[in-house]
């Protein structure tokens, strides 16, 4: 169709930046809620890259993938929040460094 208003490189750069921020969050945050949120950020960064690529080549597949990622993210959050509740009940904390019983 038409040329994209924003160049693909910019989109990919933004996507990469978001992914890195999310990954950094996963790595350095101790609170499990924040870790889950950071994972969401990473997923959305991927989704953004798909949408951008789909728009660049004028293919609908990118948006199909976006919908799929969205549903997977929803399922993941459902399971993840369930686990968070269990962790809160067992350990009375959300700090993942405290919940380290499975060490070698």
């Amino acid at each position, binding site marked *: 169709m038409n040329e994209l208003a924003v160049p693909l490189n910019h989109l990919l750069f933004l996507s990469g930046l978001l992914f890195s921020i999310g*990954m950094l969050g*996963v*790595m*350095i945050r*101790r609170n499990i809620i924040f870790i889950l949120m950071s994972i969401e950020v990473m997923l959305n960064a991927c989704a953004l890259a798909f949408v951008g690529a789909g728009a660049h080549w004028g293919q609908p597949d990118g948006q199909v993938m976006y919908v799929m990622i969205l549903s997977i993210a929803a399922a993941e959050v459902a399971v993840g929040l369930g686990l968070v509740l269990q962790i809160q009940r067992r350990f009375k904390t959300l700090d*993942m*460094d405290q*919940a*380290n*019983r*499975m*060490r*070698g």
Partner: protein
Amino acid sequence: MTDYIWLIPILPLISSITLMLGSAYLGRSVIATLGVGSVGLAAVLTGALAYNFLHAPEPIHVVYWTWMQVGQFDPSIAFYFDGLTLVMMSVITGVGFLIHLFSSEFMEHDNSYARYFAYLNMFVAAMLILVLADNLLLMYLGWEGVGTCSYLLVGFWYQHSANGRAARKAFIVTRIGDTAMAIGLLVLFTELGTLNIQDLVAAAQAKWQVGDVIPLLICVLLLAGAAGKSAQLPLHTWLPDAMAGPTPVSALIHAATMVTAGVYLIARTHGLFLLSPDAMTVVAVVGLLTSLVAAFTALAQHDIKRILAYSTISQIGYMFLALGVGAWTAGVFHLMTHAFFKALLFLGSGAIIHCLHHEHDIFKMGGLRSRMPVTFWSFLIGSAALAALPLTSGFFSKDLILLQAYQQANIGPLLWVGGLGGALLTAIYSFRLVFIVFFGHANTSPDREIGWRMAIPLILLCALSLIGGYFSLPVEKVFPIDDNQHPDQWVELVSISIPIFGVFLAYLLFLGRQLDPGFLIESASGRWLKQFWYSGWKIDRLYDLALVNPYYWIATIARNEPVDKFYQSIVITNQTLNAALSKMQTGRMRGYIVSMVIGLIGFLGLSLFFVAGAV
């Protein structure tokens, strides 16, 4: 008439088993009655058998049943009884009975009275099977049986580890000879297809010529077995240590009966040895060397039982010398007289040890002549017979051996001179013993008198030691008849006078002290020689260095499981890796994530690097 022959070995065996099973329930008098009585009954039966045999001197062969049958191999449980067997059985049951009687008092205060008689009876049963066996396999059963009993009795006072060591040594050293003998039996069976002694000798004489190689091989293997059992060079080192057992055991097993089993074996298979003159020369030389080496060693010992032990080795050396020159009758004759006087000497020393608070050192005795008269006279008579003074039993047998050795075809006069040297030494060391122990001033006083059960065996053995030389052995049909000429008069005169001269020398050295060899003994070489003889020519030390220590060394290495080391290293590697890797399982989720990310980045970087033109 001879239906009861099987009773003779069975009686001591039954008594032995009863004593073993019932040791906790039987009183001391019952134990003594069983132990002594069973052998006494066997002696009576042997006497009856002898009476019959002397009237109708035909060999008796009784087959009871077939032991086992594998193809051609069918040894039977069967007894063969002839003049030679009769001599051996009389010694075993007769002297054995006296020693049992002596033991019943000697061991009276021992806690293991029943165990003692159980072993001793089992020994008598095994020894009777050994001499009665009609085939070499059954004989081997008895042969190993007496070895086992010897082991058990040498280590009888097992609370001291030294006794256990002596017992093990006796067992292992004789086992070396027994292995050679077992190989000899295998060769015999492969070559001749039978182990029955009479058939075997006949088959061997039909198959081989005099001087063939295979008979030589067989004879040397049998000789090795005999040398192990009879404590001949180079397997004699176990006998002096075997003195760790109770003294009556030394008298019965290590003087009168078991150690003469080797002589019996060679005498019994003399038909094989006649096929191999070389083997006979070896027998004679081994016997002579042993008798000389042991006599020198006996001269330097302090322990009364060790003197007698070396003297036993030396006297059995004479028997081997006799067998080696073909003087079969003389060898067996000396076996019998030696059984009398050496049992007497051992029992006498047992009486001394019993009454002197277990003192063994002859230099701590002295002056016992008036205080232990029975023992003194026993010792005097025993030593006279051992030294072969005229008219004692030892004189007749030893004289016969020396005269026949002189007539041996090749090296006869040499053997005779060696034998005379041994006789001189025998006279010196035996009367050294008498003079030091019974004369001079007293160093210890006896704390008890011997009772009748110890005195009667001593008196009877004294009588046997004196008159034993007049017995004529019923062995004319067993051995080929000697057609030797009587040697020159001077040979006989020298043979007779040498022991008397030896006793005179011993008197001058140890009692009258007219001769003082002090300067000889005190010189450097004299002291070295004394130490050398005292240690038994350092043969024990040689064996320790050459055989025992390397064996211990290998055993020490093997104890640490060298093969297992390899498998152990695999285990250790795995365990170390496991410990290191499991440290990474910290349980911290963020750590896992970080390592995942780093790994991912590394992996991506690598794949970008290697996929050409990707970057």
